[in-house]
């Protein structure tokens, strides 16, 4: 299967991160691993894209970050969803489900 286009990857990145963080706080590497796992490797995210995006979401107040000491004894930056982020996720979810429903119906009719 062809990998998902860059445009679609970019468009889905915010709801994807917010959805992952809705399951609990996480850090960059783990988020990237979860994206790869959830999409069966179809969403090709790069590290260069991930961190600036996380920082942008943080600037926008959708997620919050704090440094904690990881098991390795090194500092690690953990991200969590904020109240504003939860509201944004609800909006994004409704929008994506609307798109999904419309496409599903269209393809359903075409196949009929």
């Amino acid at each position, binding site marked *: 299967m062809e990998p998902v286009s860059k445009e679609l990857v970019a468009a889905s990145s915010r709801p994807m991160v917010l959805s992952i963080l809705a399951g609990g706080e996480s*850090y*960059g*590497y783990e988020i*990237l691993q979860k994206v790869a796992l959830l999409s069966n490797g179809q969403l090709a995210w*790069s*590290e*260069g*894209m991930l*961190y*600036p995006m996380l*920082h*942008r979401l943080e*600037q926008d107040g959708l997620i919050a970050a704090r*440094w904690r000491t*990881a098991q*390795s004894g*090194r*500092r*690690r*930056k953990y991200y969590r969803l904020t109240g504003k982020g939860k509201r944004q996720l609800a909006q994004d979810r409704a929008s994506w489900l609307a798109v999904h429903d419309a496409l599903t119906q269209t393809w359903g009719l075409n196949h009929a």
Partner: protein
Amino acid sequence: MPELDAAIRTWRNDLARQDTLTRDDLDELEDHFRATYHELVETGIVPEQAIILARRALGEPQELATEFQKNDDPWWRRFVRLGWVMFAVSWALPVHTWGITIFDINLGEGVVPGVQAFLLALMGEAGVIGVLSALTNVAMLLTCWKPAARGRRGILRLTALIMGAALLNGSWLFQVDSLNELLVGYYVWWASFGAVASGLVLRARALSQRATPAVVQ
């Protein structure tokens, strides 16, 4: 893991030279580098190869810096650009109601545009302060020379110079008999120094949070 630590030190220095990333950014990326490395080693890849692959996965320093730069706060640039535009415009605006002119530009009776005020002041028509004030324009031109490429110290020196220039140029307010003698060009010119100084202060603040390359022994 001395090889890993040495490789990460070199890699961090390469990133720090890009002048875009903060120390926290580097710490976060280093955490990612180490996590990638350990995962690769666990899958059976030899450490030397894992270092190369982990570095490759994160991308070239320049590419990473470019991505991070997209988030860079552009406010300092906006202030500096606004200052430059005001400065440039002020040269054509009426500045003063001196009756002396060097060449004939008719802006109204006795009204001197910025360019003439500069030449008159430089020639000593307004005394020593006038000459110094005219020379502050050179300081302003210095800010046009690659402000983004200057280090924090360079920016701070430039900020002090422009703030000093703004103070000196503000002294005209106390040297005229009436504030009505000073016209819109003067105020725009004076404010341009304030706008550029504000931009440079913001730039210096942003740079203080940036990472600096460490000395590799």
